[in-house]
């Protein structure tokens, strides 16, 4: 695999007495589509927050594109090319879909008209073109997830951190989102997704990390990981594992 | 400069004022702790209470200290009514707009008072207004005005009663339940709206007591509310939003700071000391000196 675009070395973060993330080291290869899975409360979103700069690690080092970004502010990370979505979607509720995405586009577009045009293009990409003038608050869950994705995409990131972008979607909506994510990755963006929807993980991910109770308990291809006894115990359960093994890439 | 014979009376005076400040801050803390709102109308309500005491004395001849139970009940009723009738309605149960609503209420109160009483500063005369009491303990001596001493004692007693209510009575238990977990309390059958209104009423009742204790040694005009609001907030923030102990200690502390500030910087500039503390605390340690809940 290619060199790591994002690398974590020994990252640890506690809240009070609770070790949310403990000594996690991983490298996200440039140009890859990878996944981070694990039970609720495992620390996955905390890891995203640490990567993107919303949280400061207690220990460890984070590198992005060769630079040490440990503790750097989120907005600086965004400008360097790291975009993230939030598990609980965070729209600019009072603004329209177009305006929402335009905020992301403005990272590279100084002029309002250019940003709005770029927003339209991104909306096309994710399938929101028909809802451009709707207030974000009026979107369905699926719509808001797409908006979240679109806004992050509009910043023209090198690395896209997707936090459960499929959560709350029905099977059809999931089926519609998967090719969108794949297309983004094919377009050259490195994607790391937190996901519970294992179907998507099996279909999309080239490499999977498994986090449980703040620690990395396994990593490998989707097939390897779903066959891992540790992972089955901690997260998947035997039934799911068996089913997934049957469908493994 | 640090002459004990000047310092001692100043500190003592500060403590007496501080005790009343503490009582005011306790009311604000209760309201914040339970309703989670920053009651901007607190100062204006105190002003209204002061005018109430003033009118009872000049219009009906009732001594402020004797009027205390009356004022407490009247202010309680005002508070209950305000919360239930105006603040709750306007904010639709959300914490969000309450700051604006309480600001609006305070503006209305202040200016109605201005309309009714004009902007003159008024004081009352009682038999004991000018009596002073000598205090002599080992490290110093001072002559403290009797009303101030009564204020100190009264404030301490009132604060104790308030804390007892909150910690020992059924109402207090309901209040603490609602403060901690509103939805859970509702599920347990507690009438949250009623508890909110009760808490607001008690918060204002504290002001009724404070007004009775204050007026003999102080004055009233429509603008006093503003000054008290900021002082009260300073204390509440300093002591830790929602901490009774913090409000008590903070009140005494601020009282002393104000007194010493007035001593060294003169009356007006001394006030700045308080605001400077307020700003610094807000910026550096907004959780206050004692964080935690009441």
């Amino acid at each position, binding site marked *: 695999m290619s060199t790591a675009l994002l690398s974590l070395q020994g990252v640890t973060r506690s809240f009070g007495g609770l070790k949310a993330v403990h000594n996690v080291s991983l490298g996200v290869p440039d140009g890859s589509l990878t996944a981070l899975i694990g039970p609720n409360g495992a620390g996955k979103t905390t890891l995203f927050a640490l990567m993107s*700069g*919303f949280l*400061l690690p207690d220990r460890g080092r984070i590198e992005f594109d060769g630079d040490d970004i440990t503790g750097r*502010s*989120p*907005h600086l990370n*965004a400008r360097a090319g790291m975009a993230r979505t*939030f598990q609980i979607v*965070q*729209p*600019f*509720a*009072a603004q329209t879909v177009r305006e929402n995405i335009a*905020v*992301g586009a*403005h990272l590279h*577009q100084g002029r*309002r*008209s250019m*940003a*709005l045009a770029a927003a339209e293009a991104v909306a096309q990409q994710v399938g929101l073109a028909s809802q451009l003038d709707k207030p974000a608050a009026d979107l369905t869950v699926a719509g808001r997830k797409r908006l979240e994705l679109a806004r*992050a995409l509009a*910043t023209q990131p090198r690395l896209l951190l997707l936090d459960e972008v499929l959560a709350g979607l029905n099977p059809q909506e999931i089926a519609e989102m998967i090719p969108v994510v794949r297309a983004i990755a094919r377009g050259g963006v490195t994607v790391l997704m937190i996901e519970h929807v294992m179907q998507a993980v099996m279909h999309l991910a080239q490499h999977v990390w498994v986090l449980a109770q703040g620690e990395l308990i396994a990593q490998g291809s989707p097939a390897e990981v779903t066959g891992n006894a540790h992972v089955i115990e901690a997260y998947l359960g035997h039934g799911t594992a068996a089913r997934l093994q049957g469908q493994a890439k | 400069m640090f002459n004990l014979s000047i310092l001692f009376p100043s500190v003592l005076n500060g403590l007496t004022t501080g005790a009343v400040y503490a009582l005011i801050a306790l009311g604000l803390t209760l309201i914040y702790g339970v309703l989670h709102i920053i009651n901007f109308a607190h100062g204006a309500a105190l002003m209204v209470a002061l005018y109430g005491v003033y009118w009872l004395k000049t219009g009906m001849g009732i001594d402020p200290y004797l009027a205390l139970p009356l004022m407490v009940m009247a202010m309680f009723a005002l508070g209950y009514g305000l919360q239930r009738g105006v603040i709750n*309605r*306007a*904010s*639709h149960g*959300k*914490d*969000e*707009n309450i*700051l*604006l*609503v309480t*600001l*609006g*209420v*305070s*503006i*209305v109160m202040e*200016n109605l*008072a*201005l*309309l009714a009483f*004009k902007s003159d500063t008024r004081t009352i005369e009682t038999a004991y207004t000018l009596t002073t009491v000598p205090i002599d303990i080992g490290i110093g001596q001072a002559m403290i005005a009797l009303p101030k001493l009564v204020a100190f004692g009264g404030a301490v007693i009132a604060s104790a009663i308030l804390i007892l209510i909150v910690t020992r009575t059924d109402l207090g238990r309901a209040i603490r339940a609602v403060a901690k977990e509103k939805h859970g309390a509702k599920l347990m059958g507690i009438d949250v709206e009623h508890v909110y209104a009760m808490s607001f009423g008690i918060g204002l009742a504290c002001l009724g007591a404070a007004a009775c204790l204050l007026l003999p040694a102080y004055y009233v005009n*429509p603008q006093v509310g*503003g000054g008290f609001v*900021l002082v009260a907030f300073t204390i509440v923030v300093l002591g830790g939003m929602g901490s009774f102990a913090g409000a008590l200690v903070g009140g005494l502390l601020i009282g002393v700071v104000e007194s010493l500030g007035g001593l060294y910087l003169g009356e*007006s*500039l001394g*006030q*700045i000391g308080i*605001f*400077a503390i*307020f*700003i610094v605390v*807000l*910026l*550096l340690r*907004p959780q206050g000196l004692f964080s935690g809940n009441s």
Partner: protein
Amino acid sequence: MSSLSISLRERLSIAVFAGVVATLLWVLDSGVALNFIMMTLYAALLAQAWNVLGGFGGQFSFGHALFFGTGAYVQAMAQVHWGLNPWLALPLGMVISTAVGLFVGALSFRYGLKGSYFALVTLAFAEVFRIVATSVPFTGAGVGLMVPLREGVDNMQFASRRGYGLLVLSLVVLALCLTHWLRHSRFGAWLQAVRDNEDAARAVGVNPFGIKLGAIALSAALMGSAGAFYVQVFQYIDPGIAYGPHTSVEALVGAIVGGMGTLWGPVAGALVLHVLADLTRNLFGQLPGINMVIYGMVLVLMVMFAPRGITGTGQSIRRWWLRSDRDHKKEQA
């Protein structure tokens, strides 16, 4: 409708507004009418200034008089103490108000103050300035400062309200242009993003601290110009007028009533409040404080029934406290 034509329509409406009001000012002779227009424009300026920080930035200041008073005192002191021409004092006042704004903003936003805490801090600062102004002889202490009467355009003192009306109209148009720019620029988009969801904004590369500083600077500058204007009209300033709650409240209520975060909201709100104030004066006579009673009641009623302002298009007051003061001290990142 494409955004380009929205932008064009707004610019056109500003031009029409300027033209119509200027014509009215030029043509009308009645002192009452001219005064009404001038005072309404002045109130609109206050509301517009507050709107930049409060409506577009989502930071509610309760002590906006801080910047008003600074602009006013600079205007007065520059003329009285240094003999500076008022046309030069005005921009100077705006600059110094901006500096004060940057100072307060830097402190407040650096430490992540939001919501009620920010409102309180601005109030505290206004009070501090008021006390200092009352105590320091340089500002005339409690008595205040009077600017000597000397009529002449070169001295920014006009024979009638007509001249002052045109002066404040140009300031209002300036504020309108600034507001228009906020609605159609990157800075404005970033500012509103920070208002609506600060974390989401950070995630797409917006620096909240810098943006808020910019907003408070612009807001303070406009407010300062209003203060300078006040001094020219009334030739007098004292600590109560400069830093007291009246101006802070007028600015705030005007913007909220009209609709926060909009182009015409503050102007509409100022007009409504002004008409109300005039009506009450006609009904009840010149009673001290009656204006403020009305403002207070209107504020409460507004929040109760029309949180989006009378134009119905403003930012709802309700939404904003969703990320309020309770989590104002975030993890440092």
